[in-house]
Each structure stands twice: as structure tokens, then as C-alpha cells.
């Protein structure tokens, strides 16, 4: 069955519901099979093969051709039809292990972080966004109604709505490839293995060893971004984490992202007080009418 017939049929909606129920159960029950990305930015050469592989495999349309004029980065940002984006950071600062004068070039292939606690998933009013059995966050295109709430709920600015499509899209961690036992297209295409895909436990071990190794070589700036809940409590850790050598802001990553729903109770509490206040005012005003009507 082609995805076209699957998503457009009513049968598809029922099947998707069943899938979602299963995913919801897996979300709480099964975190051991988590898969993810470890993006080691010190190995990235800025070739953008990941961007191309992603576009090709997922058959993503282009976003229009532009010239940003700021660097070799003419992709500019992640979006509905751009699920990998290589950032080109140009700094007037020397990198400790490089000998290029007071200048360094940092590349980083950005992607959906598949947060352990995901703002888009928790804010989605249709239940279109689900947690898969691989721990990734997946938007079901046959459920999404394009409300756009996930777009403002993502603390990384990853997910977006495509104009003529009317639905929200983002990286799927190549859900279809994972189902077929393959690694995501970007990781497969990466020529330097800057993008590593695998089991989260394995990736974390690799990443921590890599940081230690880099520090031994003298690159003391190296650190892991979002590797676990301790380092990034606002998202409870990322399933796509990074090794960086500069402040996260330089790569356009938030220094301490917090999934908005974590603070939801603050707003709901104020809301409750205000509602009680308005009901009291309404009753008070109504009493005044009694006097006037007499």
C-alpha cells in the first residue's frame, strides 16, 4: 500500500490510532530500545551530504533557493522541508588544536533533538505527534491538522508548518528506515562519521570517551550538549545530542532549553485565580443589578 492511500483512507486513521496507543504505551514502558544521534561537531567538515541524503531519501521538496550572504550556510535554518541543517560558525578566535591564527571555522549538523520530554509532543492537541518504539518523536501526517501550536512550543525552533501543505513536519529519525533495520540517511551518508547513529547507551559511551580523548589531545573546550537529564533538565536529555567546542548560542542552540509544558502549572495556577476572581466579580456586579431593578 502506498503512503498516499494509507494516509487518505479512513482505515488509515483507525490504524494510526491503534499505532498511537501502542506508542503511548511504549513511551512509558520501553525506553531501553532508544536510538538516537550523536553529532560530533569536531569531525564535521561542512559537506552537507547529510542535508542532501535527507532530502533525497525522504523526498523533501526544496525551500526556495536563497543566498544568505553571511557564510557558506545558504540553508539557514531547519524547517518543514529541511530536516538537517549544517551551521557554519566563523569565529575570530583560535581553536586550541588548530593553527590558523585568530580564526576558526566550526561546523555543526543540526537536526531535531527528539527530546526525552518533547515540547511539540506535549502541546500537540490532536495526538498527531507520538513517541515511537525507538524513542524518537514522530509527526503522523495523517493526523496533523496544522494548528501550528508545536511550532511555538519547540524550544529549539525545529518544527515548522509548510505553507501549501498546511501540516507540521520535522525529522522522523528516518522512521521508515529504522523499521527496515537501516540507519537514518544522514548518518549513512556522513563521510567523516560526525553523525553517529545507534543505541543511546552505546552512543553515550562513545561520546564520553571522545570528550576525554579530545581533552587529552589539548582541546579543553570540548563538551557534550544535552547528553542526559542532568546536563539539560529542561528537556530531560536529548536523543540527538552534540559534542560542541563553543557556547551553544554560537551554533544557534539554546543554552538551557526548557520544554514550555514543564512550566505549565505556573500559568494554569494564575488562570485559576483569575477565573475565581472573574466569577466573584460577575456575581458582585449581578447583585448590583438586583438593587437597580427594584
Amino acid at each position: 500500500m502506498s503512503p498516499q492511500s494509507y494516509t487518505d483512507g479512513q482505515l488509515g486513521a483507525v490504524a494510526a490510532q491503534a499505532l498511537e496507543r501502542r506508542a503511548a504505551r511504549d513511551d512509558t514502558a520501553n525506553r531501553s530500545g532508544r536510538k538516537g544521534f550523536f553529532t560530533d561537531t569536531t569531525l564535521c567538515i561542512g559537506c552537507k551530504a547529510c542535508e542532501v541524503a535527507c532530502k533525497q531519501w525522504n523526498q523533501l521538496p526544496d525551500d526556495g533557493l536563497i543566498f544568505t550572504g553571511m557564510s557558506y550556510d545558504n540553508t539557514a535554518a531547519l524547517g518543514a522541508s529541511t530536516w538537517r541543517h549544517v551551521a557554519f560558525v566563523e569565529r575570530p578566535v583560535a581553536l586550541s588544536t588548530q593553527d590558523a591564527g585568530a580564526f576558526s571555522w566550526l561546523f555543526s549538523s543540526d537536526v531535531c533533538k527528539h527530546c526525552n520530554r518533547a515540547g511539540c509532543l506535549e502541546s500537540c492537541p490532536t495526538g498527531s505527534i507520538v513517541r515511537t518504539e525507538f524513542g524518537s518523536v514522530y509527526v503522523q501526517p495523517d493526523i496533523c491538522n496544522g494548528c501550528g501550536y508545536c511550532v511555538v512550543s519547540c524550544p529549539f525552533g525545529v518544527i515548522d508548518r509548510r505553507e501549501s501543505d498546511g501540516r507540521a513536519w520535522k525529522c522522523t529519525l528516518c522512521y521508515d528506515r529504522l523499521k527496515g533495520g537501516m540507519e537514518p540517511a544522514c548518518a549513512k551518508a556522513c563521510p567523516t562519521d560526525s553523525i553517529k547513529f545507534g543505541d543511546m547507551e552505546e552512543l553515550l559511551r562513545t561520546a564520553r570517551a571522545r570528550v576525554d580523548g579530545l581533552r587529552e589531545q589539548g582541546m579543553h573546550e570540548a563538551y557534550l550538549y544535552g547528553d542526559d537529564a542532568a546536563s539539560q533538565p529542561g528537556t530531560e536529555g536529548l536523543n540527538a545530542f552534540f559534542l560542541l567546542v563553543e557556547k551553544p548560542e554560537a551554533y544557534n542552540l539554546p543554552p538551557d532549553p526548557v520544554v514550555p509544558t514543564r512550566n505549565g502549572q505556573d500559568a494554569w495556577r494564575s488562570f485559576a485565580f483569575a477565573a475565581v476572581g472573574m466569577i466573584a466579580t460577575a456575581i458582585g456586579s449581578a447583585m448590583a443589578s438586583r438593587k437597580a431593578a427594584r
Partner: protein
Amino acid sequence: MSTKVQEITRYPDSVDPVKTDGRDVDRGLADLIGEASHQNAEPKDQHIQEIAEAPWRNVPSVAREDPTYFDRPMLKKSVWSPDIPIYYFLGGAAGAALTLGAALQLVSRGHYDRVRQLSEACHWIGIVGSTGGALFLIHDLGRPSRFLYMMRVFRPTSPMNMGVWILAGAAPTAITTGLLINRRGIWGRIGEVTGYASGVFGAALAGYTGVLVSNTAIPVWQQSRRWVPVMFMASSAAAAASVIDLISADEVTRSVTRVFGAVGRAAEIAATYKTEQVAAAIPKVGEALHRGGPGALWRLATVLTAASLGVSFFAGKSRKKVVVAGWLGAAGSLCLRLAVHYVGNASALDPKASFHQQRNA
């Protein structure tokens, strides 16, 4: 030049790449089975066009202190059209009117009581506002035909999902009340019960949008999340009082709106001030409330509401002044919701607002 490009056929049997939807593959020859293969796309979707710039005069680089990525936005601004702030206004006014209607129903005595008639007027404002607001809400969806998909789950973590359930409670109970409240016997009793129910749903409808807005990654509303819902609730009450003043003119109406309107407008101004103060704790975050068009809209909302409060206070028995106060109050509330929308967009596009907020949390 461009016509020349179109004349070139890159692959003899393939579609002209210039005329494809941007995938640059022949849909007839390729198997469209990728995850995004059914993403509707047209070549005119120039999503990132707005970020293209004239070439830099100096080669830019990323600053050592307080860096950003070439000042590019870190977050996405909302994809909502002004439909959404208009919905905040309509739904809010409707919700507060329903609550006031239920309160009037509570104190009224019998069917032909003037207070009861005013209560009914409130219910009808609620009916028109909530159904009209729902139309704006649906119109803004990327896939309007899938509106009901919002009701396939009950998800407390999503204020938007909660809001749909609130709206699904408020509008039908209001309509039932409007149709039944004057019937005799059991139907009338049902109308009474739904009237009170619509009052409770109404209070929720009047303020949940404030939770919806502050429960986002947008730095300015995330920062002032404890005050935005209060601001929305008060603004809804002010809007409801204003609308009632515009459609009903007698001493009983005035006795109600004088209190309800004054409290609503004063609370709106106070909550707006508090919101601004809390946001200003981090200068970069508070900046969006003062900058450019959105900032002016924000300021204008307070001016209109304050004017409405003043004119209403000194209106006395003048119908003309009451009407002016009503228009000013409604305009102030609408203006505030529009300001929230546009200030939010501006704040989302300012990367330093997010960075500074998170560094100073």
C-alpha cells in the same frame, strides 16, 4: 535569462525541473514512498526567502561574548494569522459574557424580570462570540477539515487541547440555554442548568488562551507566564462589559457593567503593567514590548482601555459617553490580543531574548 533556463531540458523524458514542485524528480518515474513524499509543495513556497539579505559590507563573524548565530532567529515565529488573536478576543468576550449571564441568572427572579432579560442577552453574546470565534479558529488551521481531530485525545499537557474541550463545553451549553431558558417545565429546568454550566465553561474560555500563549517557547510570554492569563481574563471581562454596554441601554444594564467593566478594565491595565514589569526583568526579553509596530500596538491597547475606564467612570447618565466607552473598551481588548500576537512573533525572532532568559533563569 530566466526564459533561457526554462528552455533547457535536463533529462529528455523527465519533467522540466523548473516546473516541478521543488523535489526535482519526475513524479511519474520515481516511487513516491519517502516519509515526506505526500507533503504538498508548490514552487512558490519560498519559506526562507524572507531571511535572504543584501551582501554584508563586512565579513561577519560570531562574537566571543554573548554570541548568536549571525543574529539568525533561534526559534520559529508562530505560523498563525490574525485569525487567532481575533479568536482570543471573540472567545474571551463570549466567555466573560457567559459567566456574567450565569451570575445574573443566579440573582434574577422569574421569567419577566429585567435582570433575567439581561442574562439572556449575555447568553446570546456568548453564543455569537463562541461560535464566531470557533470559525476563526478553524479557518486558521492548516487543514480545516481536520478540526475534529483535536477531540480524538484528552491531553492536559496541551492548553490548546484543553481549550478545544472548553470551547466544546461552552458553545453547546450556551446554545442550549439560549433555546431553552424561557420554556416551561423540564425544558426550562435543563436550560437553567446549562446556563450555569455555560457560566463555568465561560470563565475558562475567557482565560485559557492566556495559558495557551504563555505555554510556548516565546521568551516574552514564557517569562511573564504568571501574569498573561490574568491579563487575558481581565481583558475578556472588559470586552464583555463593553459589548453589553453597546447593545443594551438601561439603568439595570449600567448598574452591572459599571462594576464589571470597571473591575475588568482596571485589572486589564494592572495585569498589563505587571506583565511588562516581569518581562523587563531581563532587558532583552522586555524589549519586544517597546519596539516597533508591535510595541506601539501594546502601548495603544493600554491607552484605549484607560480611556474607556475614564469615560465610563464619568459617563453619568449620558448614553453617548457609555457608547464611546464601550467602543474604546472593545478596541482596547482587541488591540491587546493583536499586540500579544505580534509582540510574540517579534520576541521569537530575537535569538538574544531566548539566550539571555535562559542564561539568567
